[in-house]
């Protein structure tokens, strides 16, 4: 019964008893006001609940029905003075609560003029964050200690931006813009880790190459349990182009940052994949600037598009956990797929293109059922081409 996850979470609960049993970490300017108000209300709650239960249990015991106490005492059945008196303290307390809640809400909704704007698009079932210089990511990158405002809109249904450690939430509604602001307090650990170089980069790249080789071998013989030979790894490392190696360094940096980032959720039910409409908040040093968007090779651009648009449902990394949707971790070109109507299709470029621009044309058979369609992506023709280029070889860029 005690699997490792459960064991860890019990440990987390015990560790939390010291202070964070009821709230997550506090990481934004809104949190301290929020936490103070919440604590105040909780003290009131505990006081009244305990008082009511103690009195109730005490009465049940003291006035229990016995031979000696077989009828109620003849006491007044109403008392206007008493009834007014016990209405007053709760009234005074809730007036304070209202005031704290009101003034905090005003702070939370009054956006500083100099806030750094980030455009947020919500769409079934992913977030897209676009910075003023055009830098786009599936995670939310923000500088620490500076006000940030999210300008949010939805392409389809209502979503809701929720970052628990910042204590902020706002619905993202189609047809209108909604805004939310905060000042992130602490840079994420390793958010701006220096790019790997030299030996460290080599050993990271070697790991990736080894995984690649293992995967290739497994593809040939799914039953085998292959290992990558040192010679093969060395050969591939030696022949790798410097740009490609640099890309590995950048990938590594993003991977590390996202691992330590804060969890961001969609909090408004938005359909089938609502519970995986997630992202990470990565808080950078105050001096951070969004990287200049660089145009890479079509494959690299395709990969970016894939990570933003497709990766929450389609897996390409064999070490990532599987889900029920078509899996690309073994590649798909040339495979033969069975469609929902029973026909079969050999995957080629035309099929990939058609599936992107018209998801309803050919629906693959599988556990997602025949009434679940891949959403139509807002891509221009060039982007569709880049995506197809990537999908033809999702594991590695063709030399």
């Amino acid at each position, binding site marked *: 019964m005690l699997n490792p996850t459960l064991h860890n979470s019990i440990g*987390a*609960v015990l560790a939390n008893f010291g202070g964070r049993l*009821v*709230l*997550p970490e506090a990481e934004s300017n809104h949190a301290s006001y*929020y936490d103070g*108000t*919440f604590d105040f*209300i909780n003290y*009131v709650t505990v006081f*009244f*609940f305990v008082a*009511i*239960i103690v009195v*109730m249990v005490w*009465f*049940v015991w003291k*006035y*229990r*029905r016995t031979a000696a106490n*077989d009828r*109620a005492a003849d006491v007044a*059945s*109403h008392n206007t003075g008493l*009834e007014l008196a*016990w*209405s007053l303290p709760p009234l005074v307390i*809730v007036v304070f*609560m*209202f005031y704290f*809640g*009101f003034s*905090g*809400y005003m702070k*939370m*909704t009054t956006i500083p003029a100099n806030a750094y704007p980030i455009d947020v698009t919500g769409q*079934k079932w992913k977030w897209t964050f676009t910075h003023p210089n055009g830098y786009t990511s599936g995670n939310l990158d923000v500088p620490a200690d500076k006000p940030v405002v999210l300008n949010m809109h939805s392409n389809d*249904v209502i979503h809701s931006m*929720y970052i*628990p450690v910042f204590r*902020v939430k*706002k*619905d993202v*509604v*189609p*047809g209108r813009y909604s805004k939310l602001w905060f000042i992130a307090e602490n840079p994420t650990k390793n958010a701006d880790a220096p790019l790997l170089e030299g030996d460290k980069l080599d050993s990271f790249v070697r790991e990736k190459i080894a995984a690649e080789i293992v995967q290739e071998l497994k593809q040939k013989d799914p039953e085998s349990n292959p290992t990558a030979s040192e010679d093969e790894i060395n050969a591939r490392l030696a022949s790798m182009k410097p740009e490609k190696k640099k890309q590995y360094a950048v990938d590594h940096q993003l991977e590390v940052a996202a691992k330590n980032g804060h969890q961001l959720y*969609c*909090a408004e*039910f938005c*359909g*089938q994949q*609502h*519970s*995986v409409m997630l992202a990470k908040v990565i808080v950078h040093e105050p001096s951070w600037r969004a990287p200049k968007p660089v145009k890479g090779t079509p494959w690299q651009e395709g990969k970016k598009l894939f990570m933003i648009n497709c990766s929450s449902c389609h897996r390409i990394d064999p070490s990532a*956990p599987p*889900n029920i949707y078509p899996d690309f971790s073994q590649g798909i070109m040339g495979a033969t797929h069975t469609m929902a109507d029973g026909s079969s299709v050999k995957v080629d470029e035309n099929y990939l293109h058609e599936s992107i621009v018209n998801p309803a044309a050919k629906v693959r058979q599988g*556990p*997602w059922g025949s*009434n679940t*369609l891949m959403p139509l992506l807002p891509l221009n023709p060039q982007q569709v081409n880049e995506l197809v280029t990537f999908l033809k070889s999702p594991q590695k860029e063709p030399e």
Partner: protein
Amino acid sequence: MTTTQSSIDTIYGPDAEPNYLNAERGLWSWLTTLDHKRIGIMYLMGILGSFALGGFAAIMVRTEHLSSAATAAADQGTIMTPDTYNSMFTLHGAAMVFLFIIPGIPAALGNFILPVLLGAKDVAFPRLNLMSFYLWMGGAIFFVMALLMGGLDTGWTFYTPYSSGHSPFGGVVPAVFGAFVLGFSSILTAVNFLATMHTLRAPGMGWFEMPLFCWSLYATAVIQILATPVLAITLLLLIAERVLHVGIFDPALGGDPVLFQHFFWFYSHPAVYIMILPAMGVVSELIATYSHKEIFGYKFIAFSSLAIALLGFLVWGHHMFVSGQSALAGTIFSLITFTIAIPSAVKVFNWLATMYKGSIELTNGMLYGLSFIWVFSLGGLTGLPLATMVTDVHLHDTYFVVAHFHYVMVGGTVFAFLGGLHHWWPKMFGKMASRLGGFIAWVLIFGGFNLTFFPQFLMGSQGMPRRYWHYQPEFHVYHLISSIGAYIQLAGFITLAVVLLQSLIKGRKAAANPWGGTTLEWQTTSPPPHLNFDEANMPVAGNPYDYENIEHNADDDEYVRTRPQSTARSH
């Protein structure tokens, strides 16, 4: 046809004195009955069936969460796909809200007991009463078929534009239509109850001699009549948009999705009081009867029900603090929400004051009454951070909200319903249920309930969003405890079902007044005759809570009245 009657004969014997159960024979006599008691029993069966359906979905949801610790456990497999999960929580919410909680106490317990409490022979419009039952059945069948066959994944709230333009399931229109039909049943029952209370009170029964349960049904009926039409209109607009693509709520068609939320909560927040006010009425009866003492602050309790009913119409926007409604609107809604907290809180003080210097008997009915105070207090108090604007921002749409409304709606309403069921069971069927068996069921239900929902406060305030098929591993332990609590509750409800069914077959015969109650239903036989009271001995009403002249007869374990009820209240 003969089965129903022969089982009734088995229970009561062919020579039993005439009562409403054996007055007419055969299934047809039930299906065409105009007797409010039989209609109440039929409602009770329908409602318990709906509760079982909603409970099944809840157990499925909790079982899914045993094993869905997000990424880490994904390869260990889950029992259902996201589509199935989304349908299950929708089925749970919709069945429980529309088919169980809203009609539960008024239509089942209210139908059976209200005319008897008033000393009347029936409701004012018996045929209308039967019609509203068939509307309920029709709506319910439509609703359940839609959920099971077409499928529905919108949640019971049907938020647009997901429901009107995006949900891929076929069940949206039939389910919405089912809810529309159920609304008519609700309105007709309310009209009937109001007319009954206005015109059919026994001689001597002024407004302030009505038992408090009647006052709560009065306030509930007012809400049902005024709020339900708004829901009906909203649901029709939703159907118009989904089927005919008339742009009302979907921005892609030129509509406004937040408008739907205003319309929806304009009904559904008052509906929360449709659920809780009758429960408070039942609890007032339980606390007074089992304390054997006059209720404290009768008029305050009566008027606070009406005040809650009216103020309940002015607070719907507190469901929408993060929806994008204006800060000014949010501020006003927050303020009014706090004003409604006061009468609710003071009711609790009144019940405690009723127990003060009483003669308190811990029957199973009383245990549910006391559980209500526990659960409702916690549910009400955890409403405070949700009414406070700044704290609601973080808690909205998390498990904290889920825990809060389960404490209020389920803990509150279900416990009051079960208390009322135990209280009036002898009157309904003329049989006493096993006290020990009922106690065991109570321990399991009350313990299991708290074990299920208390951890949800903690995980919600830590940031666990609701309606999540997969969740982050750090929440696993809370989900595990919660699911174990759900299984304990399941065991409790099965035990309770066995105990109640067994009482029908083997239960001791119930006396006319087994609990020492003073309201009029205890002045007739258990079960009552077809027209509720013996024609020769029609009741005369007085102070409904006059415990002075009730004596316990230990030989027959029943209570008898030594003098007629006093007409004026003593103090």
